[in-house]
């Protein structure tokens, strides 16, 4: 349907007399007009009364990477969504809870129909082949162009750049499969490597701990047996919306105790905590070492047993002199490090307290409480691991778990969830969709980026290996990406750098200018290259600094989407509405560019979107009753295929195609004691001989040479094989100019980032309803505010070594003194005059620097905060929406 059809359809509906519910969407199609800060699209408030016969519920996707899963549906009248609903397909009960969406999911309609959506391909006015006036990026005017023009122009410039500079001058970071296939067929592209979420847990599998995914946490039914939960840096109320928090609340109501360790008196702490123990960000390792010290020095196997020696000796290596892995230096054992035998510094609670800000007796108390409680479940988010130099944290956590024996046993766990709770609780009972295959084209030919051969698909480049040094592998670590491109050199290994000269940046399905550290350098880089293209739904920051912007369709506008929920649900959502104006799918765009590049479009995109969705549906699997494997989920008949227009083989499953499509979700009901209960490491703990860990020693490695070597080879830091404390690049210690005499330095505060309710990273940041409901806050303790003469609600300037950010401050005792926090994901918005970010993007404050395993180092940077004397900031919802094109 052409844009005119869409517009006239929407407009004509607005005139419907029957019930003029569509007034808002009339304006959605309209211009940028803004009245009193209210986007035109939402001025009218004429609600639709629900009447079964008039519309229908359509399962509607919420596909964002929030790590949590929710089921949405939309009530569609005459082709347009008039309101949303959530899972009511099953009766709600703890063994089979409804999969309810979060606030963000419920604002999808508002987001997708808001005035900020991209409608047409656009070109930067002063762009010319080779770049034109590059300085104008970010402030030039936009010119609407046709798809043909856009695609021709893009293909031509791609060919020129390849011709003149080669494929290794094209950067495209994790763009999603349709683009990966295109760019691979084009001859390859420079990609990034690393992991955003997991921090230093990402490579902790070297220890024999914390991966594969199903080995992170116990099954949700098993945790009903837990007596004490220690939620360390864990705020499921905000960042694991849905079942994880619902479950925690159930456990608590059934009598479990909860201790929360966090610099922030989070919503989780408010709701669940019996005790809240504050600790500074980025200092957790010290805290853990001190707990180990308490257990070691106070343990008396007879009178006061605190340590599970049997566990340590049977299942681990490296704890003490007598249990070292082969070939290791016996002096490099954990126990002597803790006691300070060789380095002269016992890791006492007093020592740790100075660093982490938690009183020594609380450290002692927590250690003893964990050690003396029968069933403890320890949960950590990767937030404290998303810290520079935090490579010892996983070892410290695992070791405390081993010392107290809270692993591999019912009701007991010592784990983390890698930021994505669907990775927790155990292997999935329903499989399909995005996670199922390395390619999301189930029946498509495999593909490979010629500049990263051997690293297939989405998860290909989490970890570094020796191949990175080979000439045909071009992968740059996420954290140093912008700096590397800025100086033209990146790290390929220990003492090995390589020159890189990027001419084209192609942003698809991400917002890395905003989401990688070093936003200020990223902007510089964007102003240097010849050609920047962004393919997105909105004019997000990367799009703002682009030359060409291609509007894409959301999953609400495509045939369907298959996605797993938590362990027990799988969803098949459907098309809710017609494509928004001229937006196209990512796969359509790839096909069309392929044609113009002289490639075979059928090789790039092997089948129609619809057929691909069907292939996914057919491939969905459900666990067999005995837990031994998967069988097909969906029953598909010849008639189904005829009716829906798919090709494939008929199959027998648990639910008919029609029912699945209509309901949009399939649940598995759980039963206590069923075959699906899951406790990580249980098989190892039950029978270590026959189920060794995947390490040289076959055990958990407290002393782990392979982990140390891995990190050392990454090229940024040397790592000891045991979990020694290393002060972070920018942590608490570095807020001092003189640590010994406690003289504060130029940046005396610790800033860290929170994953907030307002958005999923930078996605949904511009949804008007969410902007109104959740301010883009900057949190600061009253003591720090008072010292700077700052009052609640005032605009403040936050300065770091790398950039400056403006924000209206929320002065609250809920955050520790000395610590300040921003919600991550806010869209950068640089004021051209002052160079200050008015948007509140924390990556403006972070430097593009890699440490350790090249993990994200976002949860501590040093800042100073002062009152802003310029014009005060307005809150986002009081500002006019960012509208891509001011058209007549």
């Amino acid at each position: 349907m052409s844009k005119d059809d869409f517009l006239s359809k929407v407009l004509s509906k607005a005139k419907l007399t029957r019930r003029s519910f569509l007034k808002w969407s009339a304006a959605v199609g309209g211009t940028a007009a803004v009245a009193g800060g209210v986007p035109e699209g939402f001025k009218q408030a004429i609600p639709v009364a629900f009447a079964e016969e008039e519309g229908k519920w359509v399962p509607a996707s919420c596909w964002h990477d929030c790590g949590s899963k929710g089921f949405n549906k939309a009530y569609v009248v005459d082709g347009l969504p008039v309101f949303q609903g959530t899972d009511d397909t099953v009766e709600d009960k703890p063994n089979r809870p409804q999969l309810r969406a979060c606030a963000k999911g419920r604002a999808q309609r508002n987001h997708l129909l808001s005035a900020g959506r991209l409608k047409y391909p656009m070109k930067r006015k002063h762009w010319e082949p080779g770049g034109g006036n590059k300085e104008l990026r970010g402030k030039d005017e936009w010119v609407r162009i046709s798809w043909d023009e856009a695609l021709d122009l893009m293909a031509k410039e791609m060919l020129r750049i390849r011709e003149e500079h080669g494929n290794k001058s094209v950067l495209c970071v994790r763009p999603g499969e349709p683009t990966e296939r295109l760019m691979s067929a084009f001859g390859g592209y420079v990609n990034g490597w690393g992991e955003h979420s997991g921090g230093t847990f990402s490579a902790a599998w070297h220890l024999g701990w914390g991966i594969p995914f199903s080995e992170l946490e116990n099954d949700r039914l098993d945790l009903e047996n837990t007596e004490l939960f220690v939620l360390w840096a864990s705020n499921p109320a905000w960042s694991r919306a849905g079942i994880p928090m619902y479950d925690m609340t159930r456990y608590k109501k059934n009598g479990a105790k909860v201790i929360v360790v966090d610099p922030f008196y989070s919503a989780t702490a408010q709701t669940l905590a019996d005790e809240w123990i504050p600790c500074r960000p980025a200092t957790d390792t010290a805290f853990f070492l001190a707990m180990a010290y308490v257990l070691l020095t106070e343990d008396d196997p007879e009178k006061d047993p605190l340590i599970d020696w049997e566990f340590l000796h049977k299942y681990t290596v490296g704890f003490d002199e007598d249990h070292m892995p082969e070939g290791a230096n016996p002096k490099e054992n954990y126990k002597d490090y803790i006691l300070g035998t060789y380095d002269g510094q016992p890791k006492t609670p007093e020592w740790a307290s100075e660093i982490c800000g938690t009183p020594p007796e609380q450290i002692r108390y927590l250690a003893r409480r964990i050690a003396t409680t029968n069933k403890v479940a320890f949960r950590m988010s990767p937030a404290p691991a998303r810290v520079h130099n935090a490579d010892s944290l996983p070892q410290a956590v695992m070791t405390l778990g081993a010392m107290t024996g809270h692993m591999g046993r019912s009701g007991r766990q010592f784990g983390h969830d890698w930021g994505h709770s669907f990775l927790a609780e155990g292997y999935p009972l329903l499989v399909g969709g995005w996670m199922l295959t390395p390619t999301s084209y189930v029946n498509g030919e495999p593909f490979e980026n010629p500049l990263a051969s051997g690293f297939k698909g989405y998860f290909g480049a989490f970890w570094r290996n020796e191949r990175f040094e080979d000439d045909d592998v071009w992968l740059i670590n996420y954290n140093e990406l912008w700096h590397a491109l800025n100086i033209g050199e990146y790290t390929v290994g220990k003492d090995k750098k390589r020159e890189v000269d990027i001419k084209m940046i192609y942003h698809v399905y991400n917002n890395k200018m905003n989401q990688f550290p070093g936003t200020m350098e990223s902007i510089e880089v964007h102003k240097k290259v010849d050609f920047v293209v962004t393919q997105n739904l909105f004019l997000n920051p990367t799009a703002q600094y682009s030359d060409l912007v291609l509007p894409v369709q959301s999953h609400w506008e495509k045939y369907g989407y298959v996605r797993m929920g938590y362990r027990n649900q799988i969803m098949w959502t459907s098309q809710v509405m017609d494509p928004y104006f001229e937006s196209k799918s990512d796969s359509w765009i790839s096909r069309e560019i392929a044609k113009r590049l002289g490639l075979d479009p059928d090789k790039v995109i092997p089948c129609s979107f619809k057929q691909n969705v069907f292939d996914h549906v057919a491939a969905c699997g459900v666990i067999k009753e005995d837990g031994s494997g998967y069988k097909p989920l969906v029953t598909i008949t010849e008639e189904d295929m005829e009716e829906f227009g798919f090709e494939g083989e008929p199959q027998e499953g648990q639910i008919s195609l029609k029912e699945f499509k209509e309901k949009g979700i399939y649940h598995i009901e759980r039963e206590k004691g069923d075959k699906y209960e899951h406790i990580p490491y249980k098989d190892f703990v039950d029978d270590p001989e026959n189920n060794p860990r995947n390490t040289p020693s076959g055990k958990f490695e407290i002393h782990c040479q392979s982990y140390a070597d891995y990190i050392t080879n990454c090229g940024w830091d040397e790592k000891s094989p045991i979990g020694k404390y290393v002060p972070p690049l920018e942590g608490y210690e570095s807020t001092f100019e003189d640590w010994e005499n406690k003289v504060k330095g130029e940046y005396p505060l610790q800033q860290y980032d929170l994953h907030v309710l307002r958005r999923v990273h930078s996605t949904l940041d511009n949804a008007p309803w969410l902007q109104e409901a959740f301010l883009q806050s900057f949190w600061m303790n009253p003591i720090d505010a008072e010292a700077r003469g700052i009052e609640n609600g005032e605009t403040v300037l936050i300065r770091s070594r790398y950039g400056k950010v403006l924000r209206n401050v929320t002065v609250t005792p809920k955050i520790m003194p000395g610590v300040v926090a921003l919600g991550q994901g806010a869209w950068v918005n640089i004021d051209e005059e002052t160079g200050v970010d008015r948007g509140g993007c924390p990556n403006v404050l972070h430097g593009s620097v890699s440490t350790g395993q090249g993990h994200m180092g976002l949860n501590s940077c040093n800042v100073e905060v002062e009152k802003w004397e310029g014009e005060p900031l307005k809150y986002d919802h009081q500002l006019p929406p960012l509208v891509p094109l001011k058209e007549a």
Partner: protein
Amino acid sequence: MVKQYAFYFDASACIGCKTCQIACKDKKNNTPGVNFRRVVEYGDGGWVPHPVHKELLMPSNFFAYYVSSACMHCEEPICVEVCPTGAMHKREDGVVLVDESKCVGCRLCEQACPYGAPQFNEESGVMTKCDLCIDFLEAGLQPACVASCPQRALDIGELEELKKKYGDVNAIEPLPDGQYTKPAIVITPHPDSQKSGEGTGKILNPMEV
């Protein structure tokens, strides 16, 4: 037939996630500034020096919790009593509704209601508020907010039955004492909940409600 519909709210389970608020906004297609359901955060706390290690600061008297509130469909609705036009009225099943065709937009109900439930719509010039999603109720569905809550902290039902099931608390800070309007609500307090009128805390998110 229901005699008095009522909401149930579990303050010990509410995490302030505002899913209910957005679900309501979506169902009612409300403009910015108009929210039939709002989530308030209430609490307090401070930091005091550690008795021995003076340079360490420790949290003291900390508490905070959330209250999600919409119209209480009160048994003695002050909004109805003050309304000059009769636009604000109470149905037989207890639901308090605005008849927008009658409303003169004098905003007196808004001034009077201690729950901030009536929300004036500047565009249309009339008062609007929570109607308990009666269209959903009639179709056998739950109100949008209730069905949305990921924490199962909301429910609706017959007031007397909810009272039997959950007790008769109908006010915690920062909600007003129930004496003013006899709100049709049953609350399970948060362990830190404070009694209405006696709270020592304050609303922590004034800009967001």
